[in-house]
């Protein structure tokens, strides 16, 4: 009698029929497609559909932009890489960043991040949902000024790291968990950052980390972590999960502890 379960046998059969597909499912199939597009130096757009629609844009085999209907799109800024000429808005290659050396500026650094973070956030979402890709469309470009060239391996490594962080958070909060403010009768004193305060004042009935991120134009991944921190401070609770993660006392914290280092260990090593 076979020791292999029926499900495993079906998966092995599927793998043999679809060489790009692995036991991991859709995400690995998409990753294989992205690697292939990068390897041949593709330029164009890979449309995606499924739980969340979106697209990933390539230029010369590098990821330059991505968007998903389930993550915010980048906010157009009047400063930043486009203003410095570090990103091309008309198809020209970007410069090497020498301009930044002459005038280091936090605003410019934040502008660079403002272009990159939404792209990583969108790809994390597209690879996490059960998305499917459509036919690659060569020579389709993203909106002008919204390009931040990234190697596909850098993107996939970061997405993998984020998946492991999200897996740690999963027992406590997800991007789609409803959250409410915790309002004890005699609240203890807390100190929050401006960023956390912005989340707290917008949290109402039916709020989720994703909805707050969309409302504020912030990263869904980053907002989920920030919500976790507010849960840890005892200022927010997840209805239904509250009993599992807290003792019900004011100011109690999630039992799970998020760790970026542990996320790296889970991916198989620091350079994975």
């Amino acid at each position, binding site marked *: 009698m076979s020791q292999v379960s029926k499900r495993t046998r079906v998966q092995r059969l599927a793998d043999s029929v679809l060489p790009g597909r692995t036991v991991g499912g859709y995400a690995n199939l998409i990753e294989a497609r992205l690697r292939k597009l990068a390897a041949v130096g593709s330029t164009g757009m890979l449309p995606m559909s499924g739980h969340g629609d979106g697209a990933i844009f390539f230029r010369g085999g590098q990821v330059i932009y991505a968007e998903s209907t389930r993550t915010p799109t980048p906010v157009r800024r009047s400063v930043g890489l486009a203003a410095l000429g570090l990103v091309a808005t008309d198809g020209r290659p970007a410069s090497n960043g020498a301009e930044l050396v002459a005038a280091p500026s936090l605003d410019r650094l934040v502008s660079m991040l403002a272009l990159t*973070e939404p792209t990583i956030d969108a790809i994390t979402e597209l690879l996490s949902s059960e998305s499917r890709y459509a036919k690659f469309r060569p020579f389709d470009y993203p909106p002008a000024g919204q390009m931040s060239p990234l190697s596909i391996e850098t993107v996939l490594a970061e997405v993998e790291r984020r998946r492991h962080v999200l897996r740690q958070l999963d027992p406590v909060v997800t991007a789609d968990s409803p959250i409410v403010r915790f309002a004890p009768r005699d609240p203890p004193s807390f100190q929050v950052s401006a960023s956390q305060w912005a989340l707290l004042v917008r949290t109402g009935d039916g709020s989720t980390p994703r909805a707050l991120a969309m409302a504020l134009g912030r990263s869904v991944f980053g907002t989920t972590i920030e919500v976790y*921190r507010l849960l840890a401070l005892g200022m927010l609770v997840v209805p239904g999960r509250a009993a599992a993660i807290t003792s019900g006392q004011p100011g109690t914290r999630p039992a799970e502890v998020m760790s*970026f*280092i542990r996320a790296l260990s889970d991916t198989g090593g620091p350079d994975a």
Partner: protein
Amino acid sequence: MILPAADELLAPVMAIDGFRLACLIDGSTGMVLATREFRDSRDGPAPPTAAAGAADVINALTLLNGRLATGENLEDVMVTFSESFFMVRPVGLDQQPQILLLVIADRQRTNLAMAHRSIRDFCASFTS
């Protein structure tokens, strides 16, 4: 790294005596934005691990500060290992997203006070 164009930004902190590694990290997501390593560094700290550790340390101390509620801001963190100094400082206070500077330096070759001053001046040079 995610922002290779930003690697050059870290050139000034490489002048710190005993410099081994510097990273710019998005503290809100733990993502490494830029990295510079000492050119002869062998068996040095792995940048992703060091950066993840720095983000975890800042996360823990931010939670502590939130609970203490003294109205103070976290300015920097200095950790002394047997062979190295581990220094983390937010670049710009209450900036969203919070960007962190991590510098690791050889303990035998580094004047901690001078390194601290260099890092403070470097962060202050990032004016909005």
